[in-house]
């Protein structure tokens, strides 16, 4: 998703955000005054935007109360991002070669396709119990890897298969070897699709890391933070953490888009 471009787009964006915050505030106030409520929900327990903002500011940095050291949101973001980057690098290193192999060679494709098709339909969250019991450490990174690797594989296959056959024929005519064709024709042609897979994978990985941190033991991470705040009944901090998750995810997406625009200029 992109924010609107141009002055009009920016104005609409600002009004949209302000309108949402206003609606949020009004709903909570009405619920607290017993004027309106959504059935089966306890809207009154949701913090108002002002309470959430105060909680966000108050919990941004590490705080120390006597022996108790509570990490700031900034530290939790850092920890979660590092895990996503580690899982992402692993997924990229595994997913791209596999995708190129499966896309370029029918034999490799036929061998690996059944496994990929079955395993990719298992959501990353379904791997969490296995990660808890099997892995001594790195469970969260493993979950990110699972979340990211399949979009990368599938998009790489698509990119490789979409390579213009005329380009491959031309390279062959000019005497290029098999590896030369892959390195100089197929990969550059597939790169926009690979980056698109990375972008989709990052989104899945980011959602997966937050879920994994809620379950897999770790003293720091955004998932852990919002779960802890919920346990302490500090709902404003909890919602602030949720918003930060959304904002960081948004910026990750934008970063990849910018990367694509800047470095892969041949992509549409």
């Amino acid at each position, binding site marked *: 998703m992109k924010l*609107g471009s141009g002055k009009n787009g920016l104005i609409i964006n600002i009004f949209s955000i302000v309108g949402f915050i206003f609606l949020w505030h009004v709903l909570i106030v009405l619920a607290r005054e017993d004027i309106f409520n959504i059935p089966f929900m306890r809207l009154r327990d949701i913090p108002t935007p002002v309470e959430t903002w105060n909680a966000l500011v108050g919990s941004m940095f590490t705080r120390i109360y006597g022996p108790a050291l509570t990490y700031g949101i900034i530290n939790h973001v850092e920890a979660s991002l590092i895990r996503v980057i580690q899982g992402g690098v692993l997924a990229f290193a595994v997913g791209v070669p596999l995708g190129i192999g499966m896309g370029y060679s029918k034999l490799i494709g036929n061998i690996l396709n059944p496994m990929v098709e079955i395993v990719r339909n298992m959501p990353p969250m379904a791997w969490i119990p296995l990660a808890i019991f099997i892995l001594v450490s790195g469970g969260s990174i493993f979950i990110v890897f699972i979340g990211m690797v399949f979009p990368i594989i599938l998009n790489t296959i698509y990119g490789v298969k979409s390579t213009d056959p005329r380009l491959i024929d031309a390279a062959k005519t000019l005497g290029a070897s098999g590896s030369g064709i892959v390195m100089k024709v197929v990969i550059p042609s597939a790169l926009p699709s690979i980056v698109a897979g990375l972008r989709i994978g990052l989104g899945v990985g980011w959602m997966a890391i937050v879920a994994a941190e809620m379950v897999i*033991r770790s003293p720091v991470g955004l998932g852990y933070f919002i779960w802890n705040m919920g346990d302490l009944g*500090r709902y404003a901090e909890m919602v602030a953490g949720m918003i930060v998750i959304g904002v960081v995810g948004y910026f990750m997406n934008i970063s990849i888009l*910018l990367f694509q625009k800047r470095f892969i200029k041949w992509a549409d």
Partner: protein
Amino acid sequence: MNTSLKILLLVFAALLVPGCLQAAEKAPGEEDTPINLVRMGGQDMVQRLSTGEIAGFVGWEPWPSIAITEGYGKSLLDSGDIWEDHPCCVVAYDNDWYEDTENADEILNRASLIQMKSVEYINSAKNRSHPDHEELVGFTMEFGGLTNRDAAELSLDNVDFVYMPNIEGTQTFIGRIMDFGIFDVDKWKQSGYQTAEEYANDLITTEYVDWAIQNKDMPLTELALPETVTIRYGYLINDVHELPFYIGWKKGWFDDVGINITLAEGAPFQNGAFQMQKGFKAGAVDIGSLGIPPVIIHRINSNDFTIDDTKVGVISGMNNEGSVIVVANNINSLRDLRGKTVGYPGPGTIQHVLFLMAADKEGLKVSY
């Protein structure tokens, strides 16, 4: 790059840069390296200590006794070493249920009486030569989910069962919870309490235990309510601290006084924080047993003060002490745990607060 994107990137940078600067300024030295508390269930604590994934845990009985008798670790500190005779679990009622129930006081009188009777039964039967000792060990193994008799015996030894609520100890807990920054400051202001003493006195009443003491020699059936009432009871899973409730229930004493116990939706709860939020606040629990710190914390933090939906009242004690810091055999002091991972039941539990108190005495830092 369009203007809106630039603005957003600037905001993001503004958030990240101070964080990085702060991290650089406050990079902890070895002396400041915190002990990392990580939330997990009791079974998980024992299993992860046995595989060396955690250096220790602070837990309620029977988990410490299981880990110790199985040889996975040793007791570093009993909670009585951290604070002698500290209050632990209590019996509490939901204020909404109280206001909606005509004979709530009569029910609470009888619930306190059963609590007292159960505690007296346990304290007598703890003696290994007592004729009821075998039965007590059987109840402990059933309620604690134990298969190891030695662990059941050790659990019973480690817990001091009581029925009198401890107001002074509760005041101390409130003070420490404030010191440790666990209260939501705005919610504390909304509560209107000025001091820990005022809060503790509003939270706890001894009138039901007083009635129980006056009537302790009466046969239960003579004290039966005119009509049987059904109570939705909440308690913590496999927590030997709450054995008095289980004994009163299994021996039929609640039935004798006309109270039909049913398990509240969600019970048994994983920890006191869940019980306060998903039980009392959600209106699913009428009466329940849980640690006093979750009561203290959530009566403030989770409460909507316009309707006081998390208001509970404490009517009797359940136990004092009974938590243990268990560590791997190569750990010899709390200081040795710096930089290591220690399991605990969750933020705001009694084990959390006790661990912070132990670390405070040693001048150590604890992250959670």
